[in-house]
């Protein structure tokens, strides 16, 4: 088992006890290992937040990792940090290089231009310098409550936006959903066909078919609809498909058309 796999198993609570003890004793003596473990825990938490854990690992994560208030706070911190990164426009334009994975979509470029202008204004208010990564980074100062911070806070409508989706009808275009950059979560409301099941598995897949978010055994919000809350940070602009599968359908042999498919296009408003 690789070291990365060992650390992952540790945080999922499946590393055998003798190996756990060896690892824990090493952590007390090795600063680098301690940092590596914390980073590994962060990686796992992000996989959870973005729905990339398998069903079994997700259950282990919730039972083991999230049993700790400190670790729950850490997961919430990572979620907030992702939103904050998005809120400030990712990274300053001056720091971008050829490695950046910009998409060629016009909307992304338009957003980049706007973000760049905002960042440029911020940079102009800062002392010159800071090319490249300093080896000894200065402490991160707490933000002031100046006009800029206040304006940023006001620009953050961190709320839940309800999105009512309709099942796909042949040949119709997917629903277009516009989302402000500060929205924290999307409450997706999907009408359910009869007969309504007691629980549903829900996946949100991107255009490439990658599962961006999932949840299991979701109870219907009413006799006619299902609602799930998806962290907005998990869904960048693009095309998505919500796949809803009833528990009885999941357990039985899959039948064509058994799952409900709902498509939508998410558009980010700056």
């Amino acid at each position, binding site marked *: 088992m690789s070291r990365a796999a060992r650390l992952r198993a*540790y945080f999922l609570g499946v590393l055998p006890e003798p190996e756990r003890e060896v690892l824990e*004793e090493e952590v*007390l*003596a090795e600063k680098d290992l*301690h*940092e*590596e473990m*914390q*980073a590994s825990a962060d990686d796992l938490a*992000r996989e959870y*937040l973005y729905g990339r854990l398998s069903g079994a690992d*997700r259950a282990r994560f*919730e039972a083991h990792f999230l*049993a700790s*208030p*400190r670790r*729950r706070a850490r997961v*919430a*911190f990572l*979620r907030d*940090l992702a939103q*904050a*990164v998005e*809120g*400030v426009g*990712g*990274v*300053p334009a*001056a*720091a*971008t*290089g050829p*490695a*950046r*994975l*910009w998409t060629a979509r016009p909307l992304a470029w338009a957003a980049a231009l706007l973000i760049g202008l905002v960042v440029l204004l911020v*940079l102009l208010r800062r002392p010159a310098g*800071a*090319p*490249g*990564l300093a080896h000894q980074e200065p*402490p*991160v*100062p*707490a*933000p002031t409550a100046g006009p800029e911070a206040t304006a*940023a*806070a*006001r620009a*953050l409508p*961190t709320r*839940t936006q309800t999105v009512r989706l309709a099942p796909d009808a042949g040949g119709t275009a997917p629903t277009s959903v516009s989302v402000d950059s500060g929205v*924290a979560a999307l409450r997706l409301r999907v009408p359910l066909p009869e007969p309504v099941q007691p629980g549903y598995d829900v996946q949100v897949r*991107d255009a490439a078919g990658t599962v*961006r978010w*999932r*949840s299991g055994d979701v109870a219907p919000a009413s006799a006619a609809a299902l609602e799930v*809350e998806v*962290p907005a940070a998990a869904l*960048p602009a693009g095309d998505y498909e919500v796949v809803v599968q009833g528990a009885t359908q999941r357990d039985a042999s899959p039948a064509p058309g058994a799952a409900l498919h709902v498509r939508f296009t998410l558009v980010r408003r700056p």
Partner: protein
Amino acid sequence: MMGVKGAGGRADIDVTSGANWTLTGEGLQQLLDRLGPDDASAGAAYEALRERLADFFDWRGVRLPEAAADATLDRVARRLSLGADVGHLRGFIYGVARHVLQERLRAQIREQQAVETWTASAIASSSSSSAERERPVACLMGCLRALPAAQQELIAAYYGPEGSPYGVDHRGLAARLGLTAGGLRARAHRLRVRLEGCLQQCLRNGEGDR
């Protein structure tokens, strides 16, 4: 007498809490002497050790892990003040920590406190509908803006929304900065830790409010 045997430690060392014992300056000084050649380095080593112990207890499911870390270090200091030949210090500390762990877990079982069940929906909705949810994000935005551009880029690469245009090819970024992938990851992690400190300070100062 309760005994413990950590790797590098020795058997039959009394590590129980000792009802009538309190941490003395002498015990603490002896521990610090073992951790570093001068006050500054020993103090830093003590704090680092305490943080790692707190993480150890947290990873093992102990409530109030910082208190368990303090209890461990107090007991180690106690043994040192009593003239114990501790030998390999880190191994001894781990042995004491495991003993404290067993005590705390037994106590928790006795308390029969219900384990909270957290689900994806709970995480997603825990604070998304309240004003409390807004303050950390506003604070973090301020913290991010205060960082040099290159550090913002690093944080965005590692902790930005997945699949967004802010995503960065980690290998490409590491190559551009002359770092290994592991070095880049470690640096991003240290920045993340400092952002957490910045966030706490911002929240304590009452900033980030609308």
